[in-house]
């Protein structure tokens, strides 16, 4: 049977590896403006898309469906991003007898609506952040409040308002952003929670109502609402919190007839967990859960969607005590995170390091790949595992010393700085921490710059 992978880069490779392992042939798609063809090596067949931008290619439902039909692909994996959470896409697959590796269109429609999800969670008895739909009801709210787009995501249409008098203005801004990003301008209001932790639960659900809970992750290291470092498990939670997140996740996932793998996101503050949203897809950071459990989540996702029964003994799987993922991106942390473009000249991996067995590198690039501005800036995921958080941080520090990418400036310096930062080491991180403190923790040493240039000079002048 053939599986179409409606994605590119790192996740297309990740999906293809598992699909081949379990006996499927994979079909990859490529945009005419692609500059990095590395992922195509992992596909059994490659089809070229038509179009000049993302809307005409990776976001074009009709074109992707017709490619799947023409090439007799019975299965389709959307990866993450692009059309992965689009109910119309899942529906189009259904209508054309293609199995969409993800939840049903109805579940996707529900997950898209943040407000409806919150109501559903409350019905299930899950603690949720206090919210109102009508701005008139804001009078009994303490400021600051958060304005959120009903169909939000990725930090778009999201605004914090500290001053009551500015609320109208901010609503207008948020609505405009939401309209552009999601085609729906409706917003609602939530109590602002200061310095929470971002905690999430990974699960897989089958057609028979079995929900397997695969553990927690802490994704509190963020920059402008984008995760850059994720950890598993979330060590900030105590046993009681853990039981709470376990039962809440199972209850909610069952209540919405979910199928396949997904994530429930929570905010955590002062021993309280607040439901935030459901992510109905494989996530970038699924890898840390894989390292901690030793399971292949993509495999579980595919087999559960294809109707296999899951066994709750999967919940006892254990490989590593702790794992973290560093998102290595082509952006310059010393220069306002401007995206970088260029050829990858060389990738140095810690291949001979004594910790190499604790290291995994999931990537979509290779030497001579060209990084263009068309796609997002993720170059790869630097995954480090170990016994516990402290030991894993030390291992990561050692491994980073031998890691680097030449050709484009990357954000690796942030991680080195974080591993020295007292608040990070003591796990006192919250999502806006980096935005507020980056200048303090990321200091470039002129001494290092001079020393670095000297190595160039010495190489030029003393090569024999």
């Amino acid at each position, binding site marked *: 049977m053939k599986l179409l992978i409606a994605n590119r880069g790192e996740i297309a490779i990740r999906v293809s590896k598992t699909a081949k392992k379990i006996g499927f042939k994979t079909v990859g798609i490529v945009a005419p403006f692609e500059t990095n063809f590395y992922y195509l090596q992992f596909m059994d067949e490659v089809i070229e898309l038509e179009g000049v931008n993302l809307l005409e290619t990776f976001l074009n439902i009709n074109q992707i469906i017709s490619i799947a039909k023409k090439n007799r692909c019975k299965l389709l994996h959307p990866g993450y991003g692009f059309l992965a959470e689009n109910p119309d896409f899942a529906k189009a697959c259904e209508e054309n007898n293609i199995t969409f590796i993800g939840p049903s269109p109805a579940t996707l429609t529900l997950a898209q609506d943040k407000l409806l999800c919150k109501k559903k969670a409350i019905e299930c008895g899950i603690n949720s952040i206090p919210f109102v739909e009508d701005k008139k009801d804001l009078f009994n709210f303490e400021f600051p409040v958060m304005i959120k787009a009903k169909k939000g995501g990725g930090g778009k249409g999201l605004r914090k308002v500290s001053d009551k008098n500015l609320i109208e203005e901010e609503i207008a801004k948020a609505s405009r952003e939401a309209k552009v990003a999601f085609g729906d301008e409706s917003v609602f209001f939530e109590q602002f929670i200061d310095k929470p932790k971002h905690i999430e639960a990974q699960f897989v659900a089958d057609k028979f109502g079995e929900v397997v809970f695969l553990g927690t992750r802490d994704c509190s290291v963020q920059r402008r609402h984008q995760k850059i470092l994720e950890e598993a498990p979330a060590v900030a939670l105590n046993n009681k919190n853990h039981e709470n997140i376990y039962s809440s996740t199972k209850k909610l996932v069952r209540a919405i007839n979910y199928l396949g793998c997904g994530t429930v996101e929570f905010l955590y503050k002062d021993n309280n967990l607040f439901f935030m949203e459901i992510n109905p897809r494989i996530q970038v950071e699924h890898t840390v859960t894989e390292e901690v459990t030793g399971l292949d989540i993509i495999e579980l996702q595919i087999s559960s969607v294809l109707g296999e029964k899951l066994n709750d003994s999967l919940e006892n799987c254990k490989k590593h005590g702790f794992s973290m993922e560093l998102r290595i991106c082509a952006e*310059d942390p*010393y*220069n306002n995170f401007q995206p970088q473009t*260029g050829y990858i*000249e*060389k990738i*140095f991996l810690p291949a001979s390091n004594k910790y190499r067995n604790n290291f995994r590198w999931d990537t979509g690039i290779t030497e001579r790949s060209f990084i263009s501005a068309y796609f997002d800036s993720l170059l790869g995921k630097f995954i480090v595992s170990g016994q516990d958080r402290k030991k894993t941080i030390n291992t990561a*520090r050692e491994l*980073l*010393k031998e*890691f*680097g*990418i*030449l*050709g*484009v*400036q*990357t954000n*690796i*310096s942030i*991680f*080195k700085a974080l591993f020295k930062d007292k608040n990070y080491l003591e796990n006192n991180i919250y999502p806006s921490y980096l935005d507020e403190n980056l200048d303090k923790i990321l200091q*470039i040493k*002129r001494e*290092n*710059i*001079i*020393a*670095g*240039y*000297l*190595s*160039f*000079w*010495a*190489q*030029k*002048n*003393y*090569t*024999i």
Partner: protein
Amino acid sequence: MKLCIAGKIVSIEKSAYPFANLKIDNRSVKIKIIDIDKNSCEYLIKKRKVKFYWLQLDDTLFQILSEGESFVCEVRYVLPTKAQDKQSEKSIIYEIKAPVSGLITKIFVGPASIVNRGQKLLSLEAMKMENEIQAPVSGKVVQINVMENREVNKNETLIVLEQNP
């Protein structure tokens, strides 16, 4: 040779391998080279062992990797003026730049070669034409930034010459 690295004036003086002398803020520092390969160099500075990987991004920009850090630095030559130093640095630095984008097919000089005005420095193939690049002045090669069989962009600095005083 005087350089401005990330806004700081540094003078570098070559001495017998594996040593070099630096002057930063009038303090002299000696470096000792331990190991060199294609795009890295390891050396001792103030009893500290450092190893860096680097890539030249353009004329004045370098990307440098070191132990989990990546940064871009800007380096410019400081043209000596009379006010700065009367005796030792009357020489003038000449940057030989690529007149067009193309492929370096042959380099005729080595690091520290003495060249005469008009002498061939390298061949640059562009649009199937072989271009010979010659020394504009007599002097000494102080830096070679390119390798044979490498593509270069227009205006990329290829060779740096120090004119005889």
